[in-house]
């Protein structure tokens, strides 16, 4: 059943290329994987195309010989490849969200692991990654912040009156190895944003407190999920 096999290969290749060109692949893997996905997608389409042409012209030698091997004609387990294809063509699964934050062990940062130059007051707040914020806050109890306002982007993972947790995943290769970085935003007024809502928070470091590093917010802006959802 090589014609069906060729069709499946072409479908897989087409879906991979679509993910690459729409940048949707960044929901699942590291951005650096893009060029490899492109190569793989093209190779799969070529392979499927050649197989399909061979099958339709009936030059496939094993069929001409009329052998009946157990594996040669059946696509068998290869049908399963249609499952992710169907899922991705119809509804691409979202980026990882708040659900996994409480279940995974979060990034453990050792104090003194990184040494940061102190921040200097500028006109605009300093934009930084959540990981850097946490590393800075653990180093000499956040001495390097100097009260300079910072700007952080992440999604909401759980909230109480007056505070919520801001999280973002770190990935090394793909979403299967994602580890969340979590911190607490305090001093919010009104109803906090709902879980999984992406926000950009501006505020200053607030020393002390519980297990999580804290930030006293001066502004919270709800934003759509960024193209590169992982740090």
């Amino acid at each position: 059943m090589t014609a069906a096999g060729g069709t499946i290969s072409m479908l897989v290749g087409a879906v991979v290329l679509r993910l690459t060109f729409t940048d949707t692949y960044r929901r699942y893997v590291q951005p650096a994987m893009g060029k490899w996905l492109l190569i793989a997608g093209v190779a799969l389409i070529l392979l499927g195309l050649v197989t399909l042409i061979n099958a339709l012209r009936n030059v496939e030698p094993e069929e001409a010989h009329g052998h009946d091997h157990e594996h040669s004609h059946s696509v068998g387990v290869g049908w399963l490849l249609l499952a992710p294809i169907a899922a991705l063509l119809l509804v691409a699964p979202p980026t990882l969200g708040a659900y996994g934050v409480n279940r995974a062990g979060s990034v453990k940062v050792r104090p003194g692991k990184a040494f940061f130059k102190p921040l200097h007051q500028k006109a605009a707040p300093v934009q930084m990654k959540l990981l850097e914020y946490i590393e800075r806050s653990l180093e000499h109890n956040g001495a390097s912040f100097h009260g300079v306002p910072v700007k952080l982007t992440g999604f909401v993972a759980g909230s109480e009156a007056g505070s919520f947790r801001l999280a973002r995943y770190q990935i090394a290769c793909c979403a299967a190895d994602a580890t969340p970085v979590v911190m607490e935003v305090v001093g919010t007024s009104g109803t906090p944003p709902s879980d999984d809502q992406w926000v950009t928070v501006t505020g200053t470091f607030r020393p002390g407190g519980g297990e999580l590093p804290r930030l006293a917010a001066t502004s919270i802006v709800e934003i759509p999920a960024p193209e590169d959802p992982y740090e």
Partner: protein
Amino acid sequence: METAAVEKSLRSRRDLGIAVVVLVILLAAALRPLLQELLDRPAVAHWATIFVAITIQATPFLVLGVTISAAIAAFVPSGALPKLLPKNPAASVPVAAMAGAALPGCECGSVPIASRLITRGAPAAAALTFLLSAPAINPVVLVATAVAFPNDPKMWVARLVASLLAATAVGLVWARFGRDELLGRARSLHVHEGTKGQVFVGTAQHDLLHAGGFLIVGAATAATLQTVVPRGVLDTVAGADVLSVVALGGLAVIMAICSEADAFIAASLTQFSLTARLAFMVVGPMVDVKLIALQAGTFSSRFAARFAPLTFVAAVAAATLVGWWLL
């Protein structure tokens, strides 16, 4: 007459196959609202994202593995491999373990290659050793390990030594006690005939669908385990020395992450000892749920039921020994 009948039945089966592809796509399109509703549940969305992520991540490596496998089938004359390798397993197994360093990829690609090597007449023990060592000790993985552990430069050396040790041990055990009939499917694997180009395309297509299908089974299993088993439970065993080594080995089995990424995860598990994290990195490329599915499909489930536990024990033992010696 008979040939015509065979050809007719083949053609009708082929048409049926295309009909099924079309049907699946139409059905999926009809069920789209249902899928969307399912994805609104956080647990389902989490599962789907991890499932798709593992599949997408593995695709380039699978294509590389399938290409090499097809090239072996098309361009390596049968009988060349047995001549190339030493007859004595005590010599060929360590050679195969070292040869793993030459294949830059992760574990998904090495299964079709090892199975192709066996059909081409390589001794099973040597091919299986290569299967274990290639994803563990190739330069990309070792560099990733060195980058992930900047404060522990011995870590990548320990990973190299422990992985070579485990792969060689399993290969030698297989050479002594292994039964080749367990490799059933790989040995009887159909060899495509025709010109070199046709053999290449036929083999690549076959291996892609075969390995790809079992990869889907493995990705679904890993996504399910990651969704069901919270990683937080590990913190409870972090303190216990022996238990923590086995626990992180077990975590590597259920997480099924790419061998090129596992060093970064290991680095983030700072509540565990270096030896336990070494076990995570030695076990991961050799045994995980995705690999077990691939091996069961490529060789046989009876093979996987023996090979996976053997490899797990060897990997944990090698990591413990090397960790005690080097770290």
